[in-house]
């Protein structure tokens, strides 16, 4: 599938987002009470098709570790505490137990569609003051997605597409990148896809450590691809980059999205305006190598969040099954 630049431009100029009085195009699309947005594209037929892609019976776990060695920057410490161990037990039987403390947006995680708001509204127009409370999200909580994330996954390997180990930090991922790499890989997009982009950024983590990975700046998508995701009816998007969206952002995007001054405009556009979840820090090296080896870039994707009532996101360990 190829979308002429003109279409992308037209969509861009027409704008969606909270510009003026018009509500984003996806609001109301699945009814006034919808809380799952583009996950609605994952129909039973889509899930059935995804299962048909399992041919070799091999599973890839795409989740980064959750532990104190993997802090997300300086302020988001993750700790794993043992609360009982075998030490001192001698020959006695017993149980070992533990606790994890983390932000729900720790290492590999979903940004739920309730992660972002603007102009006092969450996705689908829900009032943010009424619904984003101390008790969690009363609308668009992550638990709404708990049985919705079994679908077809597509890996787009932009590092290989550009024949680099990893994309430069300032590389803005374009529609031409997404279409060009897909064409080269021989894979077509389908409605309901989980689109995974391998930028190679995980090399920074592997070679220089988490803190280098979390350093300022990120390759990622901008306004153009955010509108293209709507065109191809992606169910969700994720990558191995630091932010999924280009950081710093394109100068004119905050205004296009209706959030002047806000430096994560694509998060607002996707989470809040389109109702699309973002999978952050999904590590793809092993899967990308495997796809390059067998030439198969589509697979079954199983990536449910934890059933966190009212959560804004969730730690995950998504699976690709080939």
């Amino acid at each position: 599938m190829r979308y002429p630049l003109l279409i992308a431009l037209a969509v861009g100029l027409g704008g969606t987002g909270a510009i003026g009085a018009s509500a984003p195009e996806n609001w109301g699309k699945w009814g006034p009470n919808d809380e799952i947005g583009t996950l609605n594209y994952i129909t039973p037929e889509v899930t059935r098709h995804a299962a048909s892609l399992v041919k070799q019976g091999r599973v890839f776990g795409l989740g980064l570790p959750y532990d104190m060695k993997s802090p997300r920057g300086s302020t988001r410490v993750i700790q794993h505490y043992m609360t009982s161990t075998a030490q001192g037990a001698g020959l006695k039987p017993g149980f070992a137990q533990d606790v994890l403390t983390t932000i729900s947006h720790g290492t590999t995680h979903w940004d739920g569609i309730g992660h972002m708001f603007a102009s006092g509204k969450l996705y689908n127009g829900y009032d943010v003051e009424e619904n984003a409370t101390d008790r969690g999200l009363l609308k668009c909580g992550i638990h709404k997605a708990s049985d919705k994330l079994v679908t077809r996954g597509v890996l787009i390997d932009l590092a290989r597409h550009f024949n680099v180990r990893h994309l430069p930090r300032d590389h803005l991922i374009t529609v031409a990148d997404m279409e060009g790499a897909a064409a080269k890989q021989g894979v077509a997009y389908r409605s309901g896809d989980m689109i995974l982009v391998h930028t190679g950024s995980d090399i920074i983590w592997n070679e220089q450590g988490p803190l280098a990975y979390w350093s300022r700046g990120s390759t990622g998508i901008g306004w153009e691809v955010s509108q293209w995701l709507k065109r191809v009816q992606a169910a969700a998007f994720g990558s191995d980059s630091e932010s999924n969206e280009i950081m710093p952002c394109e100068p004119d995007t905050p205004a296009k999205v209706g959030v002047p001054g806000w430096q994560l405009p694509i998060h607002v556009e996707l989470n809040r305006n389109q109702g699309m979840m973002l999978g952050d820090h999904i590590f793809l090296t092993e899967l990308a190598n495997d796809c390059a080896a067998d030439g198969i870039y589509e697979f079954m994707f199983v990536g449910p969040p934890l059933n966190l009532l009212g959560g804004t996101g969730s730690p995950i360990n998504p699976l690709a099954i080939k």
Partner: protein
Amino acid sequence: MNTVPLRRPLSMSGVWLGTLALTFTCCLGDETNWGKWGRHDELGTLNYITPQCIVEAARLVRSGRTYSLAAPLGNGPLAVDPAFLLVMMQTGQGAKTHPEKPLWLMDWMALPLQGTTHWSGLGSVFGGGKIYNGYDAEASVTPLGALKNGIQTLRNKVVGRGVLLDIARLKETDILAPGYIITPDDLEAAARNQNVEIRSGDIILIRTGWIRTFFPGVTPGAVKGVAALMGRREKLQGSQPGIGWAATQWLKAQRTAAVALDNFHGEVVPPEAEGTRRIGFPDFDKPVNYELIRNQGMIIGKLFQLDGLAAACARDGVYEFMFAAAPLNIPFATGSPINPQAIK
């Protein structure tokens, strides 16, 4: 079971001298699965799941409907484990009067790893100074975590054929009686009634109905019938239906890859005397956990919410499905909260 009497070294002292006179399972006896998959194995019975099992499991997807088997994870009266805490770091309060507020909403959690729908991993049960596969317990299960048999070794596992054995339905009840011991006869009768075959590498889900007593209708922020949720600490620790000793041997004979129940302990409470005798620790009240996790190397799923899946299976008469429930990648954890997916 082959048991070998061991004398506790005289130099050791403790409050459990009573145990001294008793026998316990020999770490190298034929009865355990230790060494079966090599001396470095940390996967246990998940080794039964071959690539072919996964391919066949995927072929079971017919309608494309997905069922989440995760119980709700919430604060306060909804929490299974009181240590669970979900704190909103940024709320929407003041969003309209303070447009300069950041536009994100985030939360933070303290998550007991075996306090909601979860796998109890192979590093979670010890005894006789050992954990599964004979690793030294004190050296392996430390304040730094389960350095052997940690849950991260399963991060790309636990995908395969799932089979639901609905024992509550078999017994024509919503919830089995507290203390009801599920036997191999029950499991086989359920399989026969449901017209489903048990195969090597299956993930077997056993429904007692118990979880219904624990989670009456709940919605976020609005707990229906808080009164109904009271006294749940007692329910958690109190008598509940589950599998007994004989079922552990049946699961072993079926070459089951993993087993999960919809109760809190993954076994019948109170325990059978037979079980505590067979493991050699009459005072240890979780003999099934000991036998399956430590001896056989089989992870146990607990607090699975099976009611929705059971209703769907009863409707279409199909009790086999694709199952996927990898743990989170938490290095050296003893277990992990999960959101198991049954795909029919």
